[in-house]
């Protein structure tokens, strides 16, 4: 049926573009907001408050947003609402950088991001089914990395040569193609996920999920991953600025772009390998490269090698990006708690990341960068050991009860 195949190809391409645009939209948020607000006569206290508000929102919304996406029948509508909300946040930042609009934008963006991550995974699952999920999320990660990398490059140029408002206008513009793709990602109607009949049975099911060893261990691994990972680039980049002065900017840009290129290259391979050889070898690869990178950063003699070392982070990022939806699907086995599961992993990851920059930043101040890097290496090593000893292979486990 050539027509059916054409529809399917179109849906695949549109999902590629959706991932590309949404990742591009996310690039302007984050640390750049601090630079933008500083240029708008914001005091450091206010900037710190606005950023913390965004981080806290992104943390506390993970689980509720997952539950919400689970409850919604039309996952594409949830994604559309998330895209629009991010566009509105970007416009607010661009045209009205006063206290209330910026705080509103931070909260709206934080919640919308928490809807989009499980939303895209849910749309992908609906489109390709459980058997092909690994390959599909590998592809998602590839196009997200391309979107992120290209947007970072474009926004860096816009911010330097046009205006930093243009960064957020570009963010808002990226909404349009993202929204246009959605109607074309038309999955064939799925049977509604099985749902326990009584309230009692539903509660028992939820308790069984929340006490599932695979879920708890992987959540712990996700937290340790970001506890080890998040602070590495900021500390290395700060050190680089110290050594190289203002000319460090190009190297830092390369340190941001190189891992995205690696993610774009290896993600589909990660997705395919997860389907063929199971999750554990990839988890070990992704987690073990964290302590390796931290040790290399601690002993690095030449700042130009920093780019090469940071490129290693692309491997762990690809593994993490692919494994979150794949393991969530392994744990829920097609049941309706898929997005809750992703939300729990997201909560663990954002909490680990937030703690990482605080703890390792403080450690770098108090004891120097090598001590901070070696501590991050120890955390990464602990994460790897937890994966090795406690994380079961989720791919081959049959549906339970």
């Amino acid at each position, binding site marked *: 049926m050539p027509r059916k195949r054409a529809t399917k190809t179109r849906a695949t391409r549109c999902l590629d573009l959706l991932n590309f645009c949404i990742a591009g939209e996310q690039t302007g948020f984050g640390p750049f907001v601090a630079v933008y607000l*500083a240029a708008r006569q914001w005091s450091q206290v206010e900037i710190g408050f606005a950023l913390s508000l965004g981080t806290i929102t992104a943390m506390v919304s993970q689980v509720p947003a997952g539950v919400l996406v689970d409850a919604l029948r039309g996952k594409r509508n949830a994604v559309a609402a998330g895209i629009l909300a991010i566009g509105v946040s970007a416009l607010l930042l661009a*045209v009205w950088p006063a206290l209330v609009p910026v705080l509103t934008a931070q909260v709206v963006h934080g919640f919308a991001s928490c809807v989009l991550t499980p939303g895209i995974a849910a749309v992908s699952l609906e489109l390709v089914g459980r058997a092909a999920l690994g390959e599909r999320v590998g592809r998602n990660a590839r196009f997200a990395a391309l979107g992120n990398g290209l947007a970072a490059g474009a926004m860096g140029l816009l911010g330097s040569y046009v205006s930093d408002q243009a960064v957020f206008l570009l963010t808002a513009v990226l909404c349009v193609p993202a929204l246009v793709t959605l109607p074309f990602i038309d999955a064939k109607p799925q049977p509604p996920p099985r749902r326990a009949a009584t309230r009692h049975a539903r509660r028992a099911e939820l308790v069984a999920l929340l006490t599932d060893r695979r879920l708890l261990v992987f959540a712990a691994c996700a937290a340790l991953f970001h506890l080890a990972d998040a602070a590495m680039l900021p500390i290395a980049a700060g050190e680089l600025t*110290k050594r190289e002065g203002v000319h460090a900017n190009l190297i830092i840009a390369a340190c941001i772009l190189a891992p995205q290129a690696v993610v774009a290259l290896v993600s589909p391979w990660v997705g395919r390998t997860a389907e063929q050889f199971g999750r554990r070898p990839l988890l070990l690869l992704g987690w073990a490269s964290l302590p390796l990178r931290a040790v290399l950063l601690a002993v690095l003699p030449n700042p130009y090698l920093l780019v090469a070392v940071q490129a290693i982070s692309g491997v762990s990022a690809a593994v993490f990006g692919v494994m979150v939806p794949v393991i969530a699907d392994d744990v829920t086995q097609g049941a309706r708690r898929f997005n809750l599961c992703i939300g729990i992993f997201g909560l663990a990851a954002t909490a680990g990341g937030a703690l990482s920059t605080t703890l390792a930043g403080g450690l770098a*101040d108090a004891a120097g960068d090598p001590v901070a890097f070696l501590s991050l290496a120890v955390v990464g090593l602990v994460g790897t050991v937890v994966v090795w000893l406690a994380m079961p292979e989720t791919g081959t486990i049959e549906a339970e009860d």
Partner: protein
Amino acid sequence: MTVSRVSLIVLLLLLMAAVPEGPSRSTTPELPPTVELQTFAPREAMPVLGHRVVEADGEAVARLIDVLVDPGGRPVAAVLDFGGFMGVGVRKIAVHWSTLRFEPGEGTHRIILTLAPDEIKAAPEYRDPEKPAPVVVPATPKPKPEQQ
């Protein structure tokens, strides 16, 4: 310009939601007799927070993000934000107020840092407002000749 029109609509909607209803304030209230109004031209007083800081050759190197003052309210040091790409790798360094030269003007203010990049790049970062601030102070006063 759809973007600006859309943003205008969003702006108006938010304004309508944000502005509390109350008596109109179109008439300027009179100043009390204890104070009077003086107007400073741009070349007499310039805003500095968030302003770009340039080197003597005009190249922008940093942004002024905070001012540290003494008990009399006189500026002691400026906190400058250096480097970074999209907010990653920024470094906050406090420099003595005397290392900055201010050129207020009509529309084009300039803040010029008289320290060379090598003089500040090894400086410790200014992080915690609660702790004693590390400030880069010139060892001997050496005002650079004006280059324009």
